[in-house]
Structures are given as C-alpha cells and as structure tokens.
C-alpha cells in the first residue's frame, strides 16, 4: 500500500506522510509522526514547540487528498484524467476546525472519506486523531492536480 508514496512530489522537510494503512477508491487512512527537529518548531514557539495549524492542515491534505487523488488517477478510475512528471497537486479549499494541540514526536492518524471526484477535483471529509484516538482536527478539503487533465 505504501507503493503510492513514490508518486508524492514532496521532499524531506515538506513530506508529511509516513505510512498508508488503508486505501480504496472511497477513502484513505494514513499516519505521520512529527519529528522534533522539524524546521517549524524552533520558531513556533521558541522554547515551547507546538505544531502549527498550517502543518496540521498540510498533513491532512497530503494524506487525505493527495494520496487518495493520486490513487484515483493512477488506478484510472476517472477516465480522461492522467498525470505525469509535470503534474502537481493544488489545494483549492479547506474548512478545518482544530480540537487539540499536537506536540513534537506525536503520531497522528488521518482518515479521509471521498465526497466526490469529478472533472479532476477531489473533495473529502478529513479527520485527524492522535495516538489516544482523540480528535485533533476535522474538515472538508478540496484539491485538483495541475497539468493532469486532458
């Protein structure tokens, strides 16, 4: 299932997917463990590292939208849509609520359920939970893959 990760266009400091544990045409489950040496902790906040909301959002988007979107493309579910080296994902909207803080070294699990994938746009309901199963964040995410539509 982690085969899909080779298609992710992110590198090192901006790759926020460790593992995919479930993947189908209707949804995905994946996890990521926050590295304590991540670039954002030094300044957010000095002496008091807390994962920024934008990073939480990015983790949810990479697992919940990008992994599922790439799966839908490479598996050929949507006819007439293909991706190549020039393709990259773009987030088009998010509406997220945050319930709990995420600290360095925490493992978070993202569950995404597809609402629709049409005309190259994927919209999903995405949830993030911490290692205790508590809800960390929840929202509706949409995105497209640029340069992939024929």
């Amino acid at each position, binding site marked *: 299932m982690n085969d899909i990760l080779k298609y992710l266009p992110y590198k090192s400091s901006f790759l926020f997917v460790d593992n995919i544990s479930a993947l189908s045409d209707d949804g995905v489950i994946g996890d990521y463990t926050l590295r304590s040496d991540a670039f954002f902790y030094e300044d957010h906040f000095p002496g008091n590292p807390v994962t920024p909301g934008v990073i939480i959002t990015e983790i949810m988007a990479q697992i919940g939208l990008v992994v599922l979107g790439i799966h839908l493309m490479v598996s050929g579910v949507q006819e007439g849509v293909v991706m190549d080296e020039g393709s990259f994902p773009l987030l*088009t*909207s998010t509406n997220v609520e945050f319930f709990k803080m995420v600290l360095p070294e925490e493992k978070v699990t993202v569950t995404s359920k597809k609402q629709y994938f049409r*005309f190259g746009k994927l919209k999903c309901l995405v949830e993030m939970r911490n290692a205790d199963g508590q809800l960390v964040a929840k929202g509706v995410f949409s995105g*497209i893959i640029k340069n992939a539509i024929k």
Partner: protein
Amino acid sequence: MDRKEILTELKKVLAPYTESKEMLDGINEDTDLIKDLKINSANLVDIIIDAEAQYNIEIDFDAAEKMYNVGNCIDVISEKINKLA
C-alpha cells in the same frame, strides 16, 4: 423550461459561490462566471454538481468544459433537459 426560467434557477445555484450579489442580480447570457462573477475556478465543479441536482440532469466532461459563461450554462442545461423530455 425556457431560457428565462433556467436563468432564474441558475441564479440560485450560483448564489453560494459568488461574493458579488449585485452582479448576480444583473447577470445576462454574456456574464462570465470567473471574470465577472469572480467565482473560484475550482468551484465550477461544485456549481455543475449543484446544477445536476437542481435540474435533475447529468453533465459530462465535454458539456462541463463549455460552461464558462451564463449563456453556455443555459445551453447545456436546456439541451440536457430537452433530452429527458
């Protein structure tokens, strides 16, 4: 349903996606969804999905590509409605 009736219904479909209510009141067949109504291009997909529900039709990829202004939207919708009739 004639073009005028389709336009009236279409205004309801477009309303949640546009910030310019004055523009929406004054739309005509030449109004461009992105340039004039300032609609996020990614939301055109949602507009198409909402239009399908509103008019009880199915819009395919080729038809969707044409729907960039109000007149084209009405063309596509009226063609699909008439197919059903």
